[in-house]
């Protein structure tokens, strides 16, 4: 069980890079998969986006992300909404696992329930 917990903690740590604050965005018409991965890696949460024309290209977006600057997303709204929804749900699953881990760290007698809780969280 301890090994399982360590693996889960490492997974969470790798998914949640520190720092991010605000808004992510991107021009999904450019390279949606690559940019979607960037959102996962560099931002906790996508809070808002704006329908503002932005002549971004990959190089511009790279520099903005590296500077941890809020970026504006443009592009196909349906694809964007879908990506943001998926990220919100992924964030929720991670928060849920973190919550369960905290319970077991505070009260090791609850260890026996952890596997089932995590399985349910990620379903």
């Amino acid at each position, binding site marked *: 069980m301890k090994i399982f917990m360590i693996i889960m903690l490492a997974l969470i740590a790798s998914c949640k890079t520190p720092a991010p604050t605000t808004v992510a965005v991107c021009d999904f018409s450019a390279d949606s998969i690559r940019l979607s991965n960037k959102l996962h890696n560099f931002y*906790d*949460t*996508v*809070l*808002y986006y704006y329908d503002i024309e932005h002549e971004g290209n990959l190089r511009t977006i790279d520099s903005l992300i590296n500077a941890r600057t809020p970026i504006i997303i443009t592009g196909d709204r349906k694809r*964007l*909404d879908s990506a*943001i*929804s998926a990220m*919100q*749900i992924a*964030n*929720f*699953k*991670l*928060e*849920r696992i973190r*919550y369960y881990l905290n319970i077991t760290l505070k009260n090791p*007698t*609850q260890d*026996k*329930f952890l596997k089932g*809780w995590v399985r*349910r*969280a990620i*379903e």
Partner: protein
Amino acid sequence: MADFKKAFDRTAINEGGYTNNPSDRGNWIGKALIGTNKGVSAPVLKDFLGRTPTVQEMKNLSTDTVRAIFKKSYWDVMQGDKWHDQVKAEHVYDMCINAGCSAAIKLWQLAIGAPATGKMNKITIDKTNLV
């Protein structure tokens, strides 16, 4: 809008029958081991009935009663009828059943970048329904 019936049917798959594991805090009311049935813990049934339930009442819980409890204690508290996205609503509803609505709503607020109050409010609903 999200549909309670769909959420209820989906979550029911995860919930088992009667159990009374003493190390599960949700099975106790004070010093009385009441148990859990169909996802309804002892304290939740107590809140619903307005009194401490008996073990037999817990064992005899009907699906209709469970549905009424879940609607009142979880779905309505998270304002599920106002959610546009069924999948998001079902995730949070499932956590409500598992850990209570205050924890579930707080984790959802953290996930979407809303103020983490643990109470459903207009800001959270608006952010949830933004996409």
